[in-house]
Each structure stands twice: as C-alpha cells, then as structure tokens.
C-alpha cells in the first residue's frame, strides 16, 4: 500500500534514488545538499549498497562513474561550488556514455556566495558547465514529491539513454518538508547490456542510438576513453568518426523528446499573461496566477519540469498565445534568454529577477504585474 511520509527534499532525493535501485553513492559535504549524503550513509548499508565520502567533488563524480561502469546505479549530490568541480567528470560521463545522476541543489553564487540562501543561478551551468558540445538531461523539481519522483525518473533515464542526468534543485526545496506519497514499487529501467561476446563492439548502435556497453568485469574486454573513439571504444582522430560520434550523442536524446520532455501548462489557453518558470519559483507563480484570475486577469503558467534538452518548438506550442510572457527566476536572467530565443519579437518577454537570496513570492509577482502595468 502506498504510504505517506513527511520528508525533506534532500531526503526525498536519497529515498527516490534508493527506490530506483541506486546502490552506490559517493559525495563530498556541501550546504545545502549534505543531507543526501547523511541519509545515504545510513541507508546504503541497509540495502547492501555502497556509501563513500570522497576527498572532493572531482573524486566524487569520478567514483560514481567508476561504479556505474561496474554496473551500479549511482548518485552524487552537491551544490554550485561542488558542481563546478564536477564539470570535467560530467563531460567525461557524457563522452563515455556512463549513466550517472547528479543532484545540484542551487545556492547563491558565484563562488562561495551565500551558502544557505536559495538561487537559480546554475541553470546555464547545468547545460553548458563542461566544455565542448555535449548533451544531457536536466530535471527541475518544484516540490518534495517531485524531488522523489524525478529522482526515480532521472535514474531511469540515465540508464535508458546512457547519459548523465542532472536534478537541478535548490536550497529551498532541499530543506523543505512536505508529505509525499511513496509507492510500494517504482518502475525501474536497467541499461541494455550486450548479449554476445563474439563481434562485440561497445559503441556500435542500432536505431535507438544508445550503445549496449558491457559492464566491466563481465568478460567483454571493453574499452572506455574520453578521447574521441570509434565503435571499438578506442581512440581515433578521424574527423568523420568524431562527427558521427558527436552527432549521435546529440541525436540519442533529441530524437526522444517525447519521452524526455515534460512541461506543465496551467490555464495558458486563454491567458493574456503567461509566466514561464521552473523549480521553486513556479510555486510562487502558481499562487499568483490564482490571485490574478480571481481579480479577473487572465493569467497562466508554464512550468518547465524538463529544462534540458530545451525544445523551442515544444515550449512555443505549450505556452499558449498570451501576448505577454513574464519569466521570473532567481538569477539575473538566464531562462529568459532561451525564452526570447523561442519567441523572438512575436511576444512581449518580460524578465522578473530576484537576486537577494529570497524567493520570488506571490506578492512580488502581483506587485510586479501592477507596477509594470502588465
């Protein structure tokens, strides 16, 4: 029978990961994500899993990559400063196609910033933090329940597409406690493994574009490298191979947008003003939309549950026809850049930014709408 439990966001990420079959956690303490490590330190031994506190975030992400190659479902959790250190490992995981899941609980930056204050300043970092063209999935929970559910989904997507998945949460959701419903059993996905040793090529793909790479230690004598590699898994400097590889890494995700992208639209159909937001900010928006509607203002909301891949086309279709689009976010304007790209000059795009370490409250939104005469 499903049970209801009061949980903190960080705890929900840890429990969601366990429900999804994560059995290896490596991490380094950092506010506001440390509770994930604390829960994992306690819970992993109960499920014959491994918890290890590494010497830094670089080691943490590399350790989960190693464990993933050995067949485990893996998680690490961090915040901005640690996420910065993890970027090289994130790029490596993209390149070798290691399924890994990273929680980045956003705090105020740059640098050490305000460790205990919320922000949404890592949005672009989650997409472009590591060098080179690369593709990955980024989910944005806006509640404790969603922290649990999206972590399960993140683990499943990582396995299904052999890709890093980032859960881009924030200090508020990490520390918020809400009752959540936990199912007895959650649907899980396991990575596809090769069947035949004869003729095995780790990076040979079929129509799915996702390779069936053997776990190490299973007799396939498989090979991984962060260098551009052919389907053998060995390095090459052949430009055609490189182009095919990078294109496939892109297309394996971009050809599955139906499966990956989730957008939540609320009353956008007849809206004169639509808010596009993600994460914790969407909760202030939801309340503000209710109030605006009671005041006779046709307001709507589009919440991005999946932040990346970012599909201009899908956002355009989901956002309705409101002539005015407000983009509230806890940074100086990151999502709004993408929204402007989507709509060009066809709509009035208005940024609403807050960078003092507090949330954007419903009152902030209502005042903004009034002051800007939107």
């Amino acid at each position, binding site marked *: 029978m499903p049970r209801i439990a*009061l949980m903190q966001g960080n705890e929900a990420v840890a429990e969601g990961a366990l429900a999804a079959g994560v059995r290896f956690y490596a991490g380094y303490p950092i506010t506001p994500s440390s509770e994930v490590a604390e829960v994992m330190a306690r819970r992993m031994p109960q499920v014959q899993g491994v918890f290890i506190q590494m010497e830094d975030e670089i080691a943490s992400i590399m350790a989960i990559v190693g464990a993933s190659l050995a067949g485990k479902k893996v998680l690490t959790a961090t915040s901005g400063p640690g996420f910065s250190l993890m970027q090289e490992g994130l790029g490596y995981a993209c390149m070798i196609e290691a399924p890994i899941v990273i929680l980045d609980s956003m705090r105020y930056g740059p640098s050490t910033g305000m460790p205990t204050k919320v922000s949404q300043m890592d949005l672009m970092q989650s997409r472009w933090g590591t060098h080179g063209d690369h593709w990955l999935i980024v989910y944005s929970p806006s509640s404790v329940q969603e922290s649990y559910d999206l972590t399960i989904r993140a683990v499943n997507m990582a396995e299904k597409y052999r890709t890093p998945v980032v859960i881009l949460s924030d200090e508020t959701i990490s*520390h918020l406690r*809400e009752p959540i419903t936990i199912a007895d059993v959650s649907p899980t996905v396991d990575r596809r493994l090769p069947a035949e040793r004869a003729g095995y090529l780790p990076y040979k793909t079929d129509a799915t574009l996702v390779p069936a790479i053997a776990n190490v230690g299973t007799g396939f004598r498989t090979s991984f490298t962060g260098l551009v590699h052919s389907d053998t898994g060995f390095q090459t400097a052949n430009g055609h191979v490189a182009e095919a590889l990078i294109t496939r890494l892109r297309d394996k995700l971009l050809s599955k947008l139906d499966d990956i992208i989730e957008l939540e639209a609320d009353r956008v159909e007849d809206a004169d003003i639509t808010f596009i937001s993600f994460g914790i900010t969407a909760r202030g928006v939801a309340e503000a939309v209710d109030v605006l509607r009671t005041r006779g203002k046709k307001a709507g909301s589009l919440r991005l549950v999946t932040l990346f891949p970012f599909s201009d086309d899908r956002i355009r279709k989901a956002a309705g026809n409101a002539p005015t689009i407000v983009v509230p976010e806890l940074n100086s304007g990151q999502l709004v850049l993408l929204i402007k790209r989507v709509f060009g000059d066809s709509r009035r795009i208005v940024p609403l930014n807050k960078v003092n370490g507090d949330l954007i409250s419903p009152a902030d939104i209502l005042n903004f709408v009034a002051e800007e005469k939107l």
Partner: protein
Amino acid sequence: MDNGRFELRLTGSGGQGLILASIIVAEAAIAEGKVVTQSQVYGAEARGGTTKAELIISDRHIAYPKVTDPDLVAALTNEGLKQYGGGISRKTVVVIDSSTMALPESLNEEACKTLLALPIRNATVEKLGSELGLNVVLLGIIQGLTEVVSVEALRTAVSLHVKKQYVDLNMRALDLGIEMVRESATTGIRI
C-alpha cells in the same frame, strides 16, 4: 484557520528545538489528513544564533510554501522576533516568552491585536525541573490557542520523537502549555 489554511512561525535561538516542534505539528496535521509545508532558516552556526521554523497547514494543495501571512507567531527571544517578525498583521496572534523577553514596542496595539506574553521558560523550569521540554510546552500553547491539530494527534506525534522514558515528561510539558493558555486570561498581558 481562515480558508482552511493556517500559517505558523516559530522563532528563537538555535538549540531550543523549534524546528523539531514545527515538524511535530506537521506530523500531527498530516495524521489528520491535512497538507503541510515545513521549512526553516539555516544559519552558519550549528548551535545558538537566531532560528526560524515555519509551517503551513492547509486543507488543500499549498502552492507557495513559505509563510507570508502568519496566523500565529511564537517568539522565544527578542532577537528572533526582531529578525523574523515580518508579516505580523492584525490577524496574527503573537506569543512571546515573558520570562526572557521584554515586551517589544513594535507590537503595540495598533500593529498587533492579540499578544500573549507567557512565562514559558520559567514555567517549564518550575514545573518540569529543567528547560528540556520547552519546545513541547510551546506545542501545548499552540494547541491550546488554535486547536489547529487535536491534542491526541499532537500526543502521538510527540511520542514518536522521544525515547520511551521521556514520554511521560513530554506529555506533562504538553499539558503545561495547554494549561498556560487556559490561565492566560489572568496572566497574559493582552489577548
């Protein structure tokens, strides 16, 4: 509880158990089928420092999870009230600990219609022998004032958080808080 929604803020100094107190009310409310969001402010200090815990209890989905329009603010230190007394309106019931706090000027009759000054710490020490249980006394006060959760649900939630040998002490702490509210007509400054 206006519109089936109740907003609570507790403030004081770290180590007084206010965060736990808010979690206990949250659990009692969930047991009674309510929706809650509980949060707290985090500081750099592990002990001491000013702390705040917030709880929203509602009959339906809670969108914005932070307290913006508190129904009850309970402060155990002046510093806490100063830092986290925002949003107090004429509808807000304010409880302060008169054993450790001076009556704040900011809370004049115009700003705050219902102010209850109770000697929470002194009564706790006197009746229970030490400051331990202070937060549970406060839970009793919250229950007595608002009945936002039932006494039974609160007793169960408290029991889940204390060792067996301390259950009795904590039940007495809860009763003490409820009793203090009952007597407040004579001891309270303004209600």
